[in-house]
């Protein structure tokens, strides 16, 4: 059952770094994060890694395993060949802080740029009524654990440093879609999505959807419908108003 695995882990900081080789025991049922923890406990006590729940619920342990953007706590060792060398590197779109930990503050800045939920003025707490079918669309997007793997993967951010200013990225465009589809939100979000948050820069490659550990259909269910709404809207501003009123 147990075996010795070869690991290559990137270590370094803002000034640079390199891959380090380790040989480390692996037991049945373990995940990559277990192995990183074993390295900490036995070989590299100062190996930096972010984690929290170890159950795929908090979105802290994002990294790239053999180049694939993954949650380390949900990547089982049994998915690799025992002879394979496993390479663990930090997410590459965000600046490295140390070892596997990156500076994800970009995402918190973007979150702050999106107008918050605008509650209806005429409803007191306890008076909200919404049908399950109407909340389900937004609920899908609220499953997001903010692991930022989609942000890490989207080429519009990854390959175009200058886009970081004008492009919110899939996670936060999805947040706009979530609010736009919220049955009781009163704000007009479509113009801002296009003009302030760079919806137009997304060319629906679906790379974000592929890496989402929550299996949220980011592109199909959030980004494309949002684009369609924006287009409809260009022809007829009443469509937006009509949608809102009917959905109440």
């Amino acid at each position, binding site marked *: 059952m147990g075996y010795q695995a070869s690991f290559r882990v990137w270590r370094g900081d803002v000034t640079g770094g390199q891959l380090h080789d380790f040989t480390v025991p692996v037991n049945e049922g373990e995940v990559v994060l277990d192995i990183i923890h074993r390295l900490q406990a036995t070989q590299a006590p100062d*190996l930096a890694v972010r984690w929290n*729940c170890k159950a795929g619920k908090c979105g802290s342990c994002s990294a790239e395993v053999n180049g694939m953007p993954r949650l380390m706590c949900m990547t089982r060792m049994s998915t690799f060949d025992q002879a394979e060398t496993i390479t663990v590197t930090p997410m590459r779109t965000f600046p490295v802080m140390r070892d596997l930990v990156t500076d994800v503050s970009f995402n918190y800045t973007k979150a702050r740029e999106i107008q918050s939920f605008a509650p209806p003025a005429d409803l007191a707490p306890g008076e909200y009524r*919404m049908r399950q079918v109407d909340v389900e669309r937004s609920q899908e997007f609220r499953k997001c654990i903010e692991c930022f793997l989609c942000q890490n993967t989207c080429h519009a951010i990854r390959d175009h440093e200058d886009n970081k200013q004008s492009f919110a990225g899939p996670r936060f465009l999805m947040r706009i879609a979530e609010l736009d589809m919220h049955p009781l939100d009163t704000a007009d979000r479509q113009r801002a999505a296009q003009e302030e948050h760079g919806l137009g820069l997304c060319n629906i490659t679906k790379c974000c959807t592929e890496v989402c550990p929550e299996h949220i259909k980011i592109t199909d269910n959030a980004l494309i419908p949002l684009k369609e709404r924006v287009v409809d809207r260009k022809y007829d501003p009443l469509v937006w108003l009509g949608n809102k009123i009917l959905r109440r």
Partner: protein
Amino acid sequence: MTTQIERHEYDVVVVGAGGAGLRAAIEAAEAGKRTAVISKSLFGKAHTVMAEGGIAAAMGNVNSADSWQVHFRDTMRGGKFLNNWRMAELHAQEAPQRVWELETYGALFDRTKDGTISQRNFGGHEYPRLAHVGDRTGLELIRTLQQKIVSLQQEDFAAHGDHEARLRVFAECTITELLLDTSAGATDVPTIAGAFGYRRETGDFLLFAAPAVILATGGIGKSFTVTSNSWEYTGDGHALALRAGASLINMEFIQFHPTGMVWPPSVKGVLVTESVRGDGGVLRNSEGTRFMFDYVPEVFRAQYADTEAEADRWYADQVDNKRPPELLPRDEVARAINAEVKAGRGSPHGGVFLDVSTRLPAAEIMRRLPSMHHQFKELADVDITAEPMEVGPTCHYVMGGVEVDPDTAQSRVPGLFAAGEVAGGMHGSNRLGGNSLSDLLVFGRRAGAGAAAYVDALGDDRPTITEADAEQASAAAVGPFERPDGESPYALHQELQQTMNDLVGIIRRADEIEQALHRLADLRKRAERVGARGGRHYHPGWHLALDLRNMLTVSECVAMAALERTESRGGHTRDDHPGMDTEWRQYLLTCVLRDGEVTITKQQQPPMRPDLLDLFEKAELAKYLTEPELTGHRKPGAGGGGTAAAAGTPEGHN
């Protein structure tokens, strides 16, 4: 090594960014106080994110017979009447309002057919009471509060051109010490003056000057090997409070959740939500028997079914049938599983079977329990729609915590407040599922309001930090680097966990607890010699070295209180004192630090208000209370039950 310190001044500093901390910060900020929130992890990742099943609030959306009085009764029963009744009362009254408020922040709960918030069944709750979003309720709670904070920051940006003008989040920062003003000022007792800590990223030091500090640091589970808790749960807030002169109560009461994963080893302890049972899942032993029917204790006989047929009918008709025994309070179920495994009727990996696959259609399981399905599929190769899960008890929640005033959440130390899991009293000896999330909101809000009022009352007469205290705190923090060849904190941590797990775990005995106390004393000496090497940038070994001190102090409190309480009640089971003792119910065990040593005193509880006593039948009370305590109870035939009028109007719903 530089000891450069980054300095800040705030009205209110909230330590912790879970549900309690964020709700407290919102309240303090809305009361006009400049507020800082400090968190060991990133913003939006606190432990609360892991909560699954739901948030308890007597909104009566699914069964209109529900009311705060019924919720109050359930909470007291669950806690075996050791609860601070005033906290249980406030909690039951205010929880609906706090949940509805979340909707105005943008939360999207699952709905009933009428479009109101849907509510599900949970252990110990008489009616369907848990508002939920599938099985990811904690995520919804955290994200909603996080987004509310962002919305307050956007308002500040509009008004002051700076998002952080009045409310700032310090993510990935750890507080290591609270600072006091000991000069006799307006009061003669030491008062809170601020907090000291470090940035995890850089290792740089932080000093906050603030007249009010709210502890919202969560629990202590990382002192045990098998736990559902994350690395954050090192009992920092409990230890900080003790060192600042506050008291802890009820530390012997630890909730072992009956259903944690038992296999594979690397996920042992990870939680399997109680909703599995609330939605119809049943427990079986290796012989295929639904063994919980054999474990219904006398005090609960009247509410739980005797036969499988009746239990199964209950899901559809709760009026004419009694509840399935799988939904007994957690302490009962955890002990039952433990006993089955001990008797040799366990599952292959040392648990029992939890089966929902034969109880609900696959599609329904996928809809109601999506993250459980995901978790078992990904981590254990088990498809819960087709086969049973293997589960066993896991250390989950600490009922004990900082002793606070129920209304303001203030501790014995002026200016020090506590809310959420780090506070004690609300849940008595055992917490009901769903009662934590509601606790976070109710008492988080009260702590924020309490702190704001305290700061207002101080006026300009603010306590001050001394340089000597700041220097001492920074010297203590760099200590491990002065011992580059010192012992590994990881090894020590493992020994501590094993000690607590084996000797002060779910079933306890005097000789074993004494043995644990010896080992803890030894570990404490060794902890003074743990070392760290290298730089201070994001250094997990160093972080653990500092956390160890807290874990050891808190573990000592748990063990000492467990030794002292010679009865079994809720989350404290003594093999050598198996019965519940009405005499003991009147007392709480209180821990304080005296000259750096944990000392314990027995403290009498205030008697329950008569109108609250009247919510119960005398016969039931007699199982928990002594004869003299019953004298305040209504005369027979004088009404009561669910209809007794309580002092004070409940906020919102009745």
